[in-house]
């Protein structure tokens, strides 16, 4: 999918990030370790075949098919991406002969072989785009799909590479060996029928000395499944090695880190929106792909619905654009709630200038944009720094992942929350070595951050570090505190910690604090001051609407819709949609002037499993006649009756289409109800 509509124009970096995203290079990076392991496994697995050793032991061994069990996790929807990049990696490093099999294509061994050979022969054609078309013309449909023909094919292919010109041979052998293995990937191992798998394994193990076959099982659940699917006699033919891909949670963390926690990426998610996305991920599907989709939707919605999103781009561009804003766009800025707040905080002459002069507004906007940018840079560094601290604490009062901390900070002033309070208290009890490592990490973060204000901070932190150093030299004084320190380390649960905390508080009155304790207090206080300075929630910032997307309801509506509830509402409370006073009614009841289908629906709710159509019609016409009132005079009553009848038929058949009722064979003139709710 290519994103080329307004996004590209509005902010090239957004687009480039997005396109990177769409192609999921991030995922590839994540799986690099896994792929490296796999590649080395594949190289190892057929070295014997390579060397063409004819020893007896080797032959014994070669009854076994080398197999990689690839545990991919429950997020099935992401597997395709992993496989796609896997095939790329293998093609580049190991072998051109890769076949991907899916359970739905392989109901039987015959089908499986057909699919397998089809893919292998195609990839043969792809790899050396050779001129011998006639060979290709022998389409795989007509080839008898058997193991022997597969072996014949393999021999002919490898021979061909042997007989090629030396120069060509060298190039090819740099990438692949002379006889590269044939890799067969079972994408969804669990859904294959056991018989197919068993047969295939048994057959191919018979030919393993002629055909260097390697199997890869894609597993979503646990490696145990191999043994429950395959009996011992079959699984003993496999030489299985286990590989674990990164968990989906780690994927998510990386993606959040790479996209949301970067100052260079101008588009930001508001707290609610981020929460919705994470909830969908955690409670619905664990699918990174869906998270990305939600993120894309946010971007689209933001640029579509927020007029000031013009300015959502890199600072340099944003300033340029702010300079060339039209009058209408200036008005849009003036309408922003955050901007209004800002105006109110100014002196009166400035207020007037901001509200009337476009040029002055533009200047201010540029200044504010810069402020916002600086805020982001600082925010992220301090956030990471705080995360270093909180992730060391027992029970993680502010969350284990940085995304939780991020959410907490976005939501409101984090230092006012109870969790923050307790984590500070816990931080005041950290031991020295932990504190020192944390401080070092923080220094690294600040040094590498792009914010300019942190020179002092770095110095201050370094000073703390040297003070700790000095403390170490004057170690003998610390006997007492060390012992209490040890006590603390032993008891890690919160209850005991709090208890000791209280005790410490008590004792503090009587006991003079040691130097180390004083220093620790200083450090924690300093971190606290950083947090209060820099982790102000984004919605307190002027012009935050430009960068932050906050309408979570849109997201929920389009990604996590509830069609059944919508139907229920429409049928029970048509006034919600049709704004007519006549339809207004109390909760739970319905006006008798409601649309036919609503009345019919309401009536059928009073019935049991079977509904008598005649009773139903009778009841319906009672209601409708009452609603129509006196104008239905007796003369045309026959006509009216017919019309009501027809309306009833329509409404009932609509209910059938919606799946509330179905025709019943049990009794004539009855229909069966299919739902129970909504009474």
């Amino acid at each position, binding site marked *: 999918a290519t994103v080329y509509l*307004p996004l590209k124009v509005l902010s090239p970096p957004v687009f480039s990030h997005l396109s990177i995203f769409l192609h999921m290079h991030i995922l590839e990076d994540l799986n690099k370790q896994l792929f490296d392991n796999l590649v080395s496994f594949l190289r190892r697995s057929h070295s014997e075949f390579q060397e063409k050793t004819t020893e007896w032991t080797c032959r014994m061994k070669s009854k076994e098919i080398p197999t990689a069990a690839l545990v991919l996790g429950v997020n099935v*929807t992401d597997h395709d991406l992993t496989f796609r990049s896997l095939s790329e990696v293998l093609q580049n490093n190991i072998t051109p002969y890769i076949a991907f099999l899916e359970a739905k294509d392989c109901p039987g061994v015959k089908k499986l072989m057909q699919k397998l050979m089809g893919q292998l022969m195609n990839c043969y054609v792809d790899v050396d785009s050779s001129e011998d078309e006639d060979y290709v013309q022998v389409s795989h449909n007509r080839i008898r799909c058997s193991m022997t023909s597969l072996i014949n094919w393999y021999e002919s292919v490898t021979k061909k590479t042997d007989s090629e010109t030396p120069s060509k041979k060298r190039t090819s052998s740099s990438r692949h060996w002379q006889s590269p293995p044939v890799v067969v990937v079972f994408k969804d191992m669990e859904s294959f029928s056991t018989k197919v798998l068993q047969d295939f394994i048994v057959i191919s193990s018979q030919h393993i000395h002629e055909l260097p076959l390697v199997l890869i099982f894609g597993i979503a659940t646990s490696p145990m499944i191999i043994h429950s699917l395959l009996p011992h006699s079959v699984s003993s033919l496999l030489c299985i090695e286990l590989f674990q891909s990164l968990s989906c949670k780690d994927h998510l963390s990386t993606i959040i880190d790479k996209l949301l926690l970067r100052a260079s990426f101008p588009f930001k998610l508001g707290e609610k929106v981020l929460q919705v996305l994470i909830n969908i991920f955690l409670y619905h599907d664990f699918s990174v792909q869906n998270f990305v989709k939600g993120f894309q939707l946010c971007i*689209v919605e933001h640029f579509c619905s927020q007029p000031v999103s013009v300015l959502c781009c890199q600072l340099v561009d944003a300033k340029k654009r702010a300079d060339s804003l039209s009058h209408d766009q200036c008005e849009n800025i003036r309408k922003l709630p955050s901007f209004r707040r800002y105006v109110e905080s100014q002196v009166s002459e400035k207020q007037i200038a901001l509200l009337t002069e476009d040029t002055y507004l533009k200047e201010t906007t540029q200044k504010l944009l810069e402020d916002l940018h600086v805020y982001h840079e600082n925010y992220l560094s301090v956030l990471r720094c705080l995360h270093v601290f909180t992730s060391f604490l027992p029970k993680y009062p502010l969350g284990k992942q940085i995304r939780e901390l991020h959410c907490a900070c976005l939501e409101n002033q984090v230092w006012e929350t109870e969790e923050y309070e307790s984590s500070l208290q816990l931080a005041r009890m950290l031991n020295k070595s932990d504190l020192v490592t944390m401080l070092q990490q923080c220094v690294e973060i600040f040094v590498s951050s792009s914010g300019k204000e942190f020179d002092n901070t770095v110095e201050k932190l370094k000073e703390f570090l040297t003070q700790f150093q000095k403390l170490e030299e004057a170690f003998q004084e610390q006997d007492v505190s060390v012992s209490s320190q040890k006590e603390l380390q032993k008891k890690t649960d919160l209850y005991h910690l709090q208890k000791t905390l209280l005790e410490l508080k008590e004792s503090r009155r009587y006991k003079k604090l040691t130097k180390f304790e004083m220093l620790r207090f200083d450090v924690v206080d300093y971190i606290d001051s950083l947090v209060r300075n820099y982790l102000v929630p984004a919605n307190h910032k002027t012009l935050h609407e430009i960068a932050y997307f906050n309408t979570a309801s849109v997201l929920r509506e389009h990604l996590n819709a509830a069609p059944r509830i919508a139907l229920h*509402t*429409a049928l029970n409370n048509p006034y919600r949609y049709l704004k007519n006073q006549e339809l207004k009614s109390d909760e739970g009841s319905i006006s008798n002037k409601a649309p*036919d289908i609503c009345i019919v629906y309401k009536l059928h709710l009073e*019935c049991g499993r079977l509904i008598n159509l005649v009773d139903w019609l009778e009841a319906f016409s009672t209601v409708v006649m009452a609603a129509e009132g006196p104008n239905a005079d007796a003369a045309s009553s026959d006509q009216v009756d017919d019309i009501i009848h027809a309306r009833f038929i329509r409404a009932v058949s609509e209910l059938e289409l919606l799946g509330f009722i179905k*025709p019943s064979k049990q009794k004539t003139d009855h229909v069966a109800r299919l739902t*129970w709710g909504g009474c």
Partner: protein
Amino acid sequence: DLFKHIQNQIGKSIKVQKNKTQLMVGVKRFVKKLENISDDEAQEILEEKNYVAALGLCTQDPMGNGSSVSGGEVYSFQTPKRSSKMAELASELAQTPGQSVAPDHSECPEKTAKAPQSSKRSSSDKVQQRNKKKEFVSTTPYRLRKRLTAPDPYLESESEYSASCSEEDEEDQKEVSTVLSGQKTPAKTKAASTPPPRNTLAKKNKNKMCEGMFSDNKLSQTLHDLLKKAPLAYAAEIKELNQQHERLFSKWMLQLHLGFNIVLYGLGSKRDLLEKFRISALQESVHLVVNGYFPSITLRSILNSITEDVLNHIGTFRSPPDQLEFIIKRFKEDSSLELYVLIHNLDSQMLRGERSQQILAQLSSVPSIYLIASIDHINAPLLWDQAKLSLYNWLWYETTTFSPYVEETSYENSLLVQQSGSLALSSLTHVLRSLTLNARGIFRLLAQYQLENKDNPSYPGLSFQDFYQQCREAFLVNSDLTLRAQLTEFRDHKLIRTKRGADGVEYLLIPVDDSTLADFLEKEDEDL
């Protein structure tokens, strides 16, 4: 919430009511411009932004989503019902205040008195209830049936009908209609050079069409005539509602192009809405309309119309997956190919199957195929598992329209149309008349046997062997091969159904209710 409101107003104030088509053209031009845009043209970009703003108009529409309803209300437990409750509710509703109750008071209690009476009787006296029911049987559908037989001459002259069938070009493309109009864009000259596929398609589907049109024309006609007399309630409000949805069209286009697919849900027919979308946004692009509610639509026909009419491929495929593979390959090779697929009722009987959903999902995941579909059934979301959902890449839109499902309920799979039985009868006679005398005899045998067993509730059907024996004895067939050939023909016309019993024996059934069958035999006898 207030903020949202303000934002919404801002959006509205920006958006000048622009002509929708103009807007789309604007976007297109805009896309082309993208390629050679430099930073200096910032001013121009900002102007273009107006288009985007107009595109957006994030409607925080007043109807929102019904998320205020708790799950317990929608999915509650079954509660025991009294039989008279419906009538009680009806009378209660009939007397709700706010009505001019006084004049119809004389009529109303009478009516309500009648309804409980009947149900009371049903609970007390079973035998009497039987009789009563019989009467009812004749009243309800019969009234309908009588009305339906009125335009019968139209049906009787079936030769006339089929002649007119091919001329009815407009209506004939009901099932799958492809519109190719690429004259304006040079990239699509290939598609444009072929004659518009409408005719070929119509011809090919003529047979199917006829079946469909019968039910549509004949049955619904009377129903429609009647319903036309009854004015649509709350037309103004419904129109307002629809206009709200129509404002989303440009946004849909944008999102389709961004790789999402769109699914519409909510009460009311979304056919007109999608049709409007097609007319306003898709006139200039290649698009395919699939009427999922059509009873004889198949996955194959959808795929065929893509390969034959969009890709101009002549040839057949062994299986839908093969065909799909071909389509995907073609779309990958040629990046200029674009196709919009509109599916009315993606959750219909015929497209509901796991396999067809899988293939449609895979189709929709092709980057240059844009799918916009509607669903109506309450359980429609259960069709899709995680894998399919991620292929479909849906964006959900609630489009409650309250429009009547006119088209969707007018085919023979609809409940009340089916029950009247006259369609089945007419199609029986219609089909049988075109068969040989022997074939008709074979069918008569089966029908008679079924009628003889009509009181047996566990009648499985006539087993093939017995049937063959009987046919042989009546000198209708001379080998079981001829019988099988005959049965295949019946099955193609949906005259019989076969099912395997527990013992593996094949049983034959005529899927028509007994009274219709009796009527049919009577008529046959008259003919002879």
